[in-house]
């Protein structure tokens, strides 16, 4: 079992390395952010495996990571709105949900 858990953790790290390639490559900021999100989820997975391997106390670390994993992405979507403090769904609602970058750039903070 110990050998398998080591292999599992190694395999997870390998898939994360693949996701890092997408962070490097982009091209859009959303691509990089989502790849980082995958790395975060994978990190939670690695910590769960390490918990079984080393010490179950590590589950608390995994829990903290899972709880705060969305924080950076929420900060990111804020910066993607015209005033840097909004919600992408507000703009979509205004455009009727269609892809209209020109319009959405103009009508800013309300």
């Amino acid at each position: 079992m110990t050998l398998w858990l080591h292999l599992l953790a190694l395999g997870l790290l390998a898939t994360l390395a693949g996701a890092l390639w997408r962070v490097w490559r982009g091209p859009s900021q959303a691509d990089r952010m989502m790849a980082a999100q995958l790395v975060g989820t994978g990190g939670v997975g690695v910590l769960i495996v390490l918990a079984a391997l080393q010490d179950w106390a590590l589950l608390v670390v995994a829990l903290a990571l899972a709880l705060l994993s969305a924080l950076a992405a929420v900060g990111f979507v804020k910066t993607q709105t015209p005033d840097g403090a909004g919600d992408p769904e507000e703009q979509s609602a205004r455009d009727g949900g269609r892809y209209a970058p020109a319009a959405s750039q103009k009508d800013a903070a309300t």
Partner: protein
Amino acid sequence: MSLALDLALCALILGVSLAAVAGAGVFRAVIFFITYGLFVAIGWARLGAYDVALAEAAIGAGLTGVLLLTAQGRLRRVQADRTERPGAPLPAALAGGAVTLALAWAWFVLPVPEAPDVAQALPQSGAGNPVTAVLLNFRAWDTLLESIVLLAALLGVWMLARDADWDAPLGPRYHARPSGVLAYFGRVLPPIGLIFGVYLVWAGTETVGGAFQGGTVLAGVVLVAMMAQVLPPPRASKRLLRAALVLGPGVFLLSGLAAAALGGSFLSLSAALAKPAILIIEAALTVSIAVTLALLVIGPAEAPEPAP
């Protein structure tokens, strides 16, 4: 096998840190820095330093990410994010190499200091977690000063506000679609984070956790609630807010003075009172750390941007 795992982890940490400093583009560097925090947290976990892993996961992968991404977004909006190619990487590389060499020298050459055995003194400390015992009892001076440093950092950030904006709410005016995904998320996550943060502080005296880790988790969910427009942005002039900021250092300082008045020395904890004293100090510190960290991330007071 466990060596292969550690080597892979080291390679990832080095690769990610190299990608963060070597690549062009601020945004990419920020994202790599976020993943760097994550891998370093896993590294601390491999080393058995679970309290540090917890702090690194909460700070590095959580709070710093928001801080840097927000800063990058602001730079982009004022078109200041296009820097010229970073000139002369050679001095920086040399300085980094010199620091590495100095650390390696210290590691291999300096004698290991003869530290008193923490495990032996643990029963008298009032905490079962050796990290908490060191932070709140044996080296309480350091922790007290650190909590004051955090407060000083926040004052420094607040001083960046324009005079005219001083009474304005702190940070950007976050808004979200009232029934949208973000608002929903901002309502569901904070209660869970609140329970988990309090658990970390409570359990931290005996097992993994502590005031700093708990406070960081609380700061994280407070930020989510603010960004989802569930919590209104506070004003620096509010008395309750200021009380929350000085509660931790204040209680810590007072308990240290009380110990001196009761016949001990400053910040000494008698074995009988240590456990309740540590819990009270940690609870007060948690409140201050949570509020301070959240306010550090949202930034100084600013008047609303004029409508275009």
